[in-house]
């Protein structure tokens, strides 16, 4: 089986509006990689493929926006998609701990795009700063500060969420 397909799909899920869109993006990306339009340079195959996924996503966003009569702003689209994902029913998860499990997912969905992206690449995909910098096209210093701000923001929202819940359920 193709390596890194899981990682490509996970990443696309965080970027795209729906599972179907994510699948389309991944298929596009693998074909582009295979055709060699985006030759693997230097860094490892996983971050290479994720870079192509990212490019395919932004291309498809642009196309959607061109087609749409009234274009939605970028982050609104992505967030909408993710909230849909966060609230989609998941039979594997027991209903009791559903809310708890979904909390972080929902909070992640509400973060600005660049915060969410850097968190996913670092915390979920285990990528190092250099690869994240290359993938997101920013200097390593920016990755470090963005990651720090993203973590602080998520932590803040998380604490607030816990606080509100503890007030709601005495």
């Amino acid at each position, binding site marked *: 089986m193709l390596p890194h397909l899981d990682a490509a799909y996970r990443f696309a899920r965080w970027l795209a509006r729906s599972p179907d869109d994510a699948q389309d993006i991944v298929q596009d990306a693998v074909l582009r990689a295979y055709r060699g339009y985006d030759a693997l340079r230097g860094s490892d195959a996983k971050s290479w493929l994720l870079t192509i996924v990212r490019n395919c996503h932004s291309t498809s966003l642009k196309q959607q926006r061109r087609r749409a009569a009234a274009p939605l702003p970028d982050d609104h689209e992505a967030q909408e998609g993710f909230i849909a994902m966060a609230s989609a029913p998941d039979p594997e998860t027991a209903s009791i701990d559903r809310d708890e499990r979904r909390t*972080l997912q929902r909070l992640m969905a509400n973060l600005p795009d660049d915060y969410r992206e850097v968190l996913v690449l670092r915390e979920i995909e285990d990528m190092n*700063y250099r690869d994240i910098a290359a993938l997101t096209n920013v200097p390593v210093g920016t990755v470090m500060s963005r990651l720090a701000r993203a973590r602080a923001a998520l932590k803040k929202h998380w604490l607030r969420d816990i606080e509100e819940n503890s007030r709601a359920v005495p």
Partner: protein
Amino acid sequence: MQCPESLRVQAEFDGELDAVGAADVERHREHCAECRALHRDLAELHDALRRDLPFERAPSALQHRVMAALDDEDARTPAPKRATAWRTRPFWIGLTSGIGTAAVAATLALSLFVTPAATDATVNELLSGHVNSLLSNHLIDVASSDHHTVKPWFAGNTDVSPPVADFAAQGYSLVGGRVAYVDHQRAAVVVYRHGAHVINVFTWASAGKALPRTLTRDGYHLSFWTSGDLQYCAVSDTGWDELRSLVTLLQNLDARSHDAGAS
């Protein structure tokens, strides 16, 4: 007020510091309450994210879709994409304009007077490439029995893009690919396993160097052939017949893709 060391604490947590830097940060944490708290927060958030976020896998429908799309792609453009970016136009234009002409003449002169020593150097490179791959356990850079994986990997890592296929049905299973340095180029090495034997198939851009068709040295057989502008060499300690069968399979594959590409 944030401690100026906070980014370094984060970098240490993310495994981005070397041993000295990490020890430094650990010492700092001992007497900085703020950074101790930050480190705790980082760990807590990391654990929670790993626990609570969905760790999805690509649905099998997607896997099938992608594989089908790749096969389609093969059917439509069967000619192996020679990464003829291999110093093609820009390189030659650069050479033939002005001062480059002398260099071309020099290159031609060199290739016309192939000395046995030059051939020998190439044979030695191939042989040591083969033996080292067995000794150092550095047999493959990309491990896969899937030519969809190996082929694009070469496109990014070597100067050529050789035909790749799995001949498991014929007894030659594709193990993976590797880069080797042959004739001053990043050659592609496709690795096959045949029984207990490893066969390395080197591919690099032919420089018109006169190479023997076959050669045995130190108990290893080398079989050379060219196709288009590419030079191939299969190296192994299998018998001649086994080696020749693989060479024939590869040549047929290459011929098929040429035919299909021409039609």
